Each structure stands twice: as structure tokens, then as C-alpha cells.
């Protein structure tokens, strides 16, 4: 059953649900910003910006707690059923994944601080060449699923889920390249490991985005598409 757009008989319920969704979308926007700033700081070797990203993670954590509280209170006071219940459950899970994505952004910022701390020599550009394209992919995925959430767009969510494979492949090839560099020149190992953490964080962002996309499919279609093959997911999600 597609999620109903009609108003509830109890209007206050509509207000509560809308507020919660807006809160989650606001949190998503903030997380997006965090990734953007973290990558920017890495690219610009801007330690101040990186530290700002780290400190801003607290805001996201605060939003997560607030969103969870709202979910619990709506369940307790309104006993949502049907699409309302799926909305609450999905949003509550999406919030968790968003918070993790925020953590990954914080991790990238920490790696930036560590990489450019002035103690060790900065990494060569070739070590970092995979970061920006992977970051773009991850950002696209996150943006896509926030978009899908805002418009309850299943097709968009499917697109996001499908994008995860590409990001995974990128991660594998980035890993292979970094291993090659490390074997060529063991002095780069220290920096390369930092870079591995960064690309791993980007890969995790993709995974979390895919989770969010799956929750959106569950929210709209009522079908649980976690832990199934991509073919089944696509078939289930797009079936009328």
C-alpha cells in the first residue's frame, strides 16, 4: 500500500508526523553538509575547517536523540498503524544511519587533522586521487536518498541502492592501488593507512545510504528488501 497523503482525522497527528519528517530531513541536510565540509577540508588541507566538522558532529548526535524521543512519544501516544507505523519505524532507523554517516564524516575530518598535523610529511597527491571521485559518489547517494525520503520516491531509492555497487567497486580498486603504492614505497604506508580509513569511511557512507534507501522502499511499499539480491529488490520495489 502506497503511503497515504490524506490528512488524518486527528490533525495534531499530521503535525507530529510532519515535524518528525522535517526533523529527519534537516538532520540529513546537516549530515550532507558535514561530508561536504570534511572532503573540502581534506582537499584544502584546512585544519580549522576539519576541526569545525568534528565539533559539529555533536549537533547531529543531538538531533538523533531528539528524533528518537519523538518516535517513542508518537508510538506511545498515537499507536500508529499501517503506513504511519512504517513511517515511524523507517524514520527511526534512518536517523540511526544518518548519525553513523555523520560519524563517518567526523572520521574523515579526524584523518585530515592527523594527516596534516605537520609532524609527518603530507601525503602525495596520487595517494588521494581516489578520494574525491568516491566522495562524489557517496554524496550523490546520500543526496539521492534524502531526495527520495522527501518525495517518497521509490524509483529514486532503487537508483540509490543500485549505486552502492559502483561505490564498492571504486573502494576495491582504490584499495588495490593503495596496496600497490605501499609495496612500491614502504615509506608511504603510514599515510596510505590514513587514506584507507578515509576511503573506507566513504564506502560506509554508501552502505548507510543504501540502508536508508531500503527503509524508504519499506516505508512506501511495505516490503522488507533488506538482505535480498539486487534483482529481487528492484522487482519488489517497482512492482505495482
Amino acid at each position, binding site marked *: *500500500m502506497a503511503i497515504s497523503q490524506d490528512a488524518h*482525522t486527528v490533525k495534531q497527528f499530521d503535525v507530529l508526523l510532519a515535524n518528525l519528517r522535517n526533523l529527519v530531513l534537516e538532520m540529513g541536510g546537516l549530515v550532507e553538509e558535514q561530508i561536504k565540509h570534511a572532503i573540502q577540508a581534506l582537499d584544502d588541507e584546512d585544519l580549522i575547517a576539519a576541526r569545525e566538522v568534528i565539533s559539529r558532529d555533536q549537533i547531529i548526535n543531538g538531533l538523533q536523540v531528539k528524533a528518537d524521543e519523538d518516535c517513542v512519544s508518537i508510538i506511545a501516544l498515537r499507536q*500508529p*498503524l*499501517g*503506513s504511519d507505523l512504517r513511517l515511524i519505524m523507517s524514520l527511526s532507523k534512518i536517523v540511526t544511519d544518518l548519525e553513523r554517516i555523520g560519524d563517518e564524516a567526523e572520521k574523515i575530518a579526524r584523518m585530515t587533522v592527523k594527516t596534516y598535523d605537520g609532524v609527518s610529511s603530507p601525503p602525495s597527491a596520487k595517494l588521494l586521487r581516489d578520494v574525491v571521485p568516491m566522495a562524489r559518489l557517496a554524496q550523490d547517494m546520500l543526496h539521492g536518498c534524502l531526495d527520495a525520503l522527501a518525495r517518497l520516491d521509490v524509483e529514486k531509492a532503487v537508483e540509490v541502492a543500485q549505486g552502492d555497487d559502483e561505490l564498492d567497486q571504486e573502494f576495491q580498486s582504490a584499495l588495490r592501488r593503495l596496496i600497490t603504492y605501499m609495496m612500491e614505497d614502504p615509506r608511504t604506508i603510514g599515510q596510505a593507512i590514513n587514506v584507507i580509513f578515509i576511503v573506507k569511511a566513504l564506502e560506509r557512507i554508501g552502505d548507510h545510504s543504501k540502508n536508508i534507501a531500503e527503509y524508504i522502499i519499506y516505508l512506501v511499499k*511495505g516490503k522488507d528488501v533488506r538482505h535480498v539480491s539486487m534483482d529481487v529488490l528492484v522487482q*519488489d520495489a517497482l512492482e505495482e
Partner: protein
Amino acid sequence: MSTTAIETKVALDQALNLDTAPRKQSSVEVTDYNNRQTVGNITVDNPKMVCRGVNVYYGEKHAIKNVGLDIGANEVIAFIGPSGCGKSTFLRCLNRMNDTIPICRVTGQIRLDSDDIYDKSIDVVQLRARVGMVFQKPNPFPKSIYENVAYGPRIHGMVNDKAELDDLVRASLERAGLIKEVDKRMGEPGTSLSGGQQQRLCIARAIAVNPEVILMDEPCSALDPIATAKIEELIDELRENYTIIIVTHSMQQAARVSQRTAYFHLGDLIEVGDTDQIFTNPKHKLTEDYITGRFG
């Protein structure tokens, strides 16, 4: 095997053969308000009652429109829907309580096991002994607690002597979870009990004749939450021996006690399905709107 054990096993099976496990039947979704065809599977593997093409008319009013539904043996099925949707009317067809209303006419087929209950060869007295009923308002007879429970066995001539009757009355009260509360006061009037106790007395009275099916018409609507919880627990226990059909206004109650749920709307059976599916992922827009409180 207990219910939870079965659920665990199913969950395990599904975890092990992720994609190959049989998926829940995914029927077509209905977003059109005017489509009144029943959504979901109306049949069950082990039916106790089978209804096909049931129509009920109150004079000119078409109260139940071509309803087909199986009631599984030893299941609790809940009928939900807005007021006047026909759920109580349909329930009352199942033991022919509608016969008492002169202008009411029922067509179609309703079978209990293999007997057509509207067939001439079936006596309504026999049918009502097999299909018991519990009503919205607790309605014990204005007699003693003992007499209330003993009434059914007496009129049907189920017992030979007083000792046998005593045993039956005690056993029924025990099964209704009331024996501890009334053991010392069997002679007191049934109306002296509290509302919840009265309703359990009515259930004891109904099960005293050992029916196969028990119909419950909003049995908790006049009770407080504690009494309601006791009745719900009782329903869960009774499921082992009886098939129970419950009409309720409380969706939470339907969700708590039933395995299957049927949603009625203006005389149509809109949707029927497993209770968890109906309450998390209904297929028909009317069902969705009703359970999420968007109705009208």
C-alpha cells in the same frame, strides 16, 4: 509446539534460505476507493466455517454484499470496520441470530464443517449449541452464578445427574478463569459480579455447552483495561479448543488477540489477511485509511 517456538523456527528458516524462502503472498494493491473486491486470501487450509456469496438484506437495505470468507479451525479472526459496516451483522449470520429480526433476509452459503447452516435440515437450536455467542454488554441471566452456567447443559439435556452438572459447571468456570473468584459464591446472583467477571461468566456459560465456534460481539467494549486484558488472555487460551470470531471497535484489540483480520466497509468485505500484515501493510486504500485514522 508453542506459538513462539513456531515463529522462531519460521524466522530461522527464512534467515537460512534468504531468497528462496516462500514470500508472503503479494497481491495487487488497490488504491481505488470504489473498488470493493475483497483483497487478500479469503481461503484457509483448514477451514471450520466457509462462507460464500453471503448477502444480507434488512428490508430494502443491502447490509452485507456478496461476502466470501473462510474461518480457520482454532484461529482467532477479528472483524473490524467503522460503525454500520456490517461486521456485527455478518457475525450474527454465523449462528443465525439474524433470524430473530423479521425483515432480515440472508442468501448465499455458510457452512459449518460440512453442514450448510441455512439448510432446512439444520435446526437453529442445534446450530446455536455448536456456535456459541458472547455479547457486547455482559448479560448474565438474573439467576445465580451456578444457574447461569448450568442453563445451557440443562436445556440441551447434556448431563444425566446433579453431580455431572456440578462438574461441568466447575470445569466451565475454571476454563473461563473465574473459578477462584466465584468458588465460594456459586449461589449469588450473576449480576452481583463486576463487569469483567460478568463477561467471563457469559463466556463460561457459552463454553459450558462445549461449542465448536464462539462468536464475540465487541466483548470488551463495556470493560475497563484490566478486565479487557483478562478477557484477551482468556481468548488466547480458548483458541486451543475453539474457533473464535471477534468483532471489535478497538484495532489494538484486534491486533492483540487475532491471527487474521477482516476489514468490512459499508457491507463489503474489503480486505482479509494475517493480522500483522493488515496492521503494518494493508493492501487496500480503505483499510489503510481506516487503520491509520484517516477515515472519511
